[in-house]
Structures are given as C-alpha cells and as structure tokens.
C-alpha cells in the first residue's frame, strides 16, 4: 500500500459568470501516490491543464478540495500558496519556460532566490543541476542560444532547484523532435526512479503508455 500524496474531493472549476459559464472540471475525485509517475491525458479543452493548475496550487477550485501532502490548499492564502509551490512543486511548461534575459544558470538560481537561499549556495547547486541534465558547458548561455531540448532540460533543472517532492509538467515534449523528447523522458524516468512524484499532462500516447497510472480527463470528468 503506497501512501497518498495528492487527493482531491469533488473538485470543480467553473469559468465565467451567468450565461457564458464554462465548466472546466465537474467533480473530480482522484488520488496520486507518492513516488508515482502519472499521465493526465484527454482531448484538448477538456480540463487537463485546469486540473494540473489546481493540483499545483496555481489556481483555486470553484468548489471541492485539494489535499497535498496533508495540507488542505484551500486553507492557504495567496502568499501561502506561492511559498508552497516554491518548496513542494517543480513546474515545467511547454513553451517559453525560461526567463529570456537570464542565462541557464541564472534561471535556476532565480528559483532558489525566491525560496530565500543565499547567492553562493545558489550558484553551487545550479552547477550541480546543470551537470545532472548534461548541460554543464551551457551555464552562461541565454535561452535564445539553446535548442528547444536544451531549454527544456534547463527548465527541468530549475524545477529541481528547491528539491521538490513533485514535478508537474504541461506537455514538456510538445514541441521537440523525437531525439530530444527521448532525452527528456529518460531524465524524467530517472528522476522518478530516485523518488520524485511526476505528473505529466500530455497528448503523447508513448509517454502515457510508459506511465504507472493514467488519468483520463474528458468533459471535465475522470473517465476510467
């Protein structure tokens, strides 16, 4: 019996008001185990990203609750949610993940700065993380000087900066060629092996097939 890291209760999210409301999520109950690799799949516009935003403390549900590692997220204020994200969750998005005016190493350091880590320690850990994703020699490169795959590897390194329990990714390989995609996936599975809980929103059936559990979202509900 693996212990539950994330649990939702009747999670609903509604956008808009009056006649033009959109029901993005309609009563989602799910649980995600610690150390698992989950894929959230489903058609576009059916609530995948909304679900990830709610699980990742980026947004608040219209009703229902998210319990993450024993914390009821609805009890946290906006500053509390920000702090929670910074410590517990590492995000990787599909596009334009990196801050363009900063180098690869500085992007990683920024995540640590926001958690209040001293500059000297930031630089040290940024070097380690770049080595982990195989980009030691690109520490001073700006995002514009990196390939799409390299940028995503920097984004993963940054997501790991504060040693979070959970990695949440929204189509992390969505705009990469298959070689770069394979590199990214290898890193993700290795991180999962090391104990990180990984949640990936994806259209890619290949990733879904390799995941431990698949969460299918359709019309704002979970389909078995």
């Amino acid at each position, binding site marked *: 019996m693996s212990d539950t890291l994330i649990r939702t209760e009747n999670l609903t999210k509604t956008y808009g008001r009056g006649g033009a409301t959109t029901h993005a999520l309609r009563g989602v109950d799910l649980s995600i185990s610690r150390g698992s690799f989950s894929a959230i799949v489903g058609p576009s516009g059916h609530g995948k990203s909304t679900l990830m935003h709610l699980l990742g403390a980026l947004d608040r549900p219209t009703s229902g609750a998210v319990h993450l590692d024993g914390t009821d997220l609805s009890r946290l204020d906006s500053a509390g949610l920000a702090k929670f*994200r910074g410590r517990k969750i590492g*995000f990787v998005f599909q596009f*334009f993940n990196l801050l363009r005016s900063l180098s690869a190493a500085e992007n990683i350091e920024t995540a640590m*700065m926001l958690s209040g880590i001293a500059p000297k320690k930031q630089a040290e850990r940024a070097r380690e993380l770049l080595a982990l994703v195989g980009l030691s020699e690109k520490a001073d490169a700006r995002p514009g000087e990196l390939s799409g795959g390299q940028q995503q590897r920097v984004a993963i390194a940054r997501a790991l900066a504060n040693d979070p329990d959970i990695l949440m990714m929204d189509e992390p390989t969505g705009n990469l060629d298959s070689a770069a995609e394979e590199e990214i996936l290898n890193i993700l599975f290795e991180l999962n092996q090391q104990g990180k809980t990984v949640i990936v929103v994806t259209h890619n059936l290949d990733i879904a097939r390799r995941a431990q559990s698949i969460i299918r979202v359709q019309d704002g509900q979970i389909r078995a």
Partner: protein
Amino acid sequence: MTLTSLVIRNITSRRGRFVFTLLGISIGIASFVTFLSLGGSLKSEIQRESAALGANLVVTPKGSCAYEQVAILTGEQLPNTITGEEVAKIRAIDGMMAIPFLSERSAIDNRPVAVMGILPAETMEFKHWEILKGDYLADGDETGVIVGAVAAEQFKLQPGSEVTIRGERLPVRGVIKETGGKDDVTLFLPLPLAQRLYNAEDKASYVAVRVADIENLELYAQKIKEVVSLGVITDKQMLKSVLSIVGTVNVTLQLIAAVAILAAAFGIINTMMTATYERKREIGILQALGARRRTIFSIFLLESGLYGIFGGALGVLGGLVFSVLAAPQISSNHFTAFVKGSASSGLISPGLVFGSIAFSTVVAIVAGLYPAWRAAKLSPVEAISYE
C-alpha cells in the same frame, strides 16, 4: 542571483527602451537642476552684491520701484535725477557717511560695459578695494579711469592704455583686484568727469549711506527724509524686495521643470505598463517558481526606482554641465548679466545633487506604483496561459 540583479537584467535586456526612458527622466531632472542652480546663483550673487555695496541705507530717486533697486545691485543704468543740492543736504547730516554714485553704461567694441562716476577717496574708504596694477585715482585727477579686473582682461586694458567713453579718450590709471562682484566688470571715473560725459551736470543716480550707529538706522532714514524728498531704503529692505523678484522668477522656472518631470514620469508609467504586458508570461513563471505577489510588486517597483536613480544621476550631471555652459550666454542678457563669473560658485552643492537624485527616485517610484500593482495582481494561471 538576487532580486536587484534580476531587475537590472530585466532593464538592460531591452536597451533601446531603457535608454529612451532614462533620457526622459534625465532631461526632466537636468532642466530642474539647471533652473535651480541658475536661480540659486542669482540669489547668492544678489546677496553678495548687497554686501559689496557696503551701505546700510540707500537713497534713491523718488518713486523708485523694485526694478531700480535691482539695478543698483546689478550696475544697470539708472535715472540720474538726484541733484547736487540734495546730495549736499544728505552729506550734511552728522553721524553718517554718504557718497553719491552716477551709474551709466557705455560700450567698448560694441560690448556693453558699466560705467560708474565716483568720489575716489571716499569710495575707496567705503569699498576697501585693493589695487592690482598701476595706481588708484589721485586727488584732483579729473581724467583718469580705473578698471575692474574682469573688464581689464576682457577689453585688454591696463595702466598706460586708453579707453574711449562717449567719444573721449581717457587714460587708464589702474586695475582693481578681483572682488567677485559687479565692480569687476565696471569702469570707474571721477564723478565730475562722468557727469560731464553723460550730460548729467551735478546729478547722481543714488547715494549710498553708512551710519556710525547701526542701532539707530531708522532714525537716520527719518533724518534723510526730513531734508530731502527722496526714497530711502535700508539694505535689508532692498535685499528683501529684490530677492522676492528673484523668487518669483525661480518659481516660474521650477514650474517649467516640474512639467518636464511630470512628462518623464508618464514616460516611466508607459514603459512599465508595456513591461507588464510583455512579461506576463515571465510573471507567471516567477509565480510558479514560488514568487509571492509582494515579490512581483517589488521587482517592478525596483525597476522603476532604478530608472529614477540612474536618470536622476544622469540628469544632475547634464544639468550642471548645462548650467556651466549656459551661464556665459545668460550673462550677455542685460537683466541677468551679473550671473557671469558666478557659474562655479555654490553651483555644485551636495544638497542639490543628492536632493535631485532623491526627488527623481521618488517620482519614479510613484510612477511605478500602478504598473507594479497591475503586475502583482495577475493570477498565476492567467499569466502562464498568456502566449
């Protein structure tokens, strides 16, 4: 990485906009500093001239207004309506020393110069001049001229050379050591000679009075008014009324500068608003990385604050350079002629420098409040979903 280095990277990564926004605030502050320092030197110059006049009381033609009082301090041409008879009556009062001056203007090589008719011996006692070259006007000298140090240099005059005033060639006897005031740019003639050259027989422009007993200044003013029907003003009253004119001029100049700074403030608001739109995605990423609203707010406010500090420093530098360059131009205007030579004195005060930079920073921070609030108000999802 620190918050400040993050902000500096943000600013400098868009160089064109950085430079133009900076120029906006710099120009505003530069005009502010220019007007303030010119106004300040005008004021200190007037105070110095008032002290250099060395009089406790000044007797002016009846009905003189503030403009004539300015002219006494600046060496401008004055109506010469005080008669020799009136001067004699004033000089007859005990316990004070009264000296008439005839203030006129001439031109050498088409450049204006102040000409002053004086009583040599008594004026010397009044002003305590030191002689740089040659001799002072001797008793009974009816044709000689002595020259202020700056005028001597400007017109290449020295003992032994000649100067033409009103068509008459006059020998230069000596040069007065620099006083830092308008005497430096004046030619001094014996009073009778000046009266003859300017067809002002037996006339004077004003009478400077120094009393023995400063406590009874008002009493002496009263005595003068009893014997002649002329205006009498104390040095303090004169200073006050002249400074109030200068103050009005200064306020006007500062209002113009304020408009420039206001325009610059809107430039900053515009730049920062554009930045909040452009960096929406980046704001979302920072929020996902754990940045609180307060942090986002600080980042944007710090950015506009830095515009204020850099722009202020650049503006102060530009303003000081401009006022040093502008001072000679302004001195060719009659009314402000005496600003000349004062460009370096009291202009670069630490108070002005730091005050202006602080002012610029405060303006920039205030201008940055709304954009920073807008940026901080973004929800993470809204910011991340923006492409």
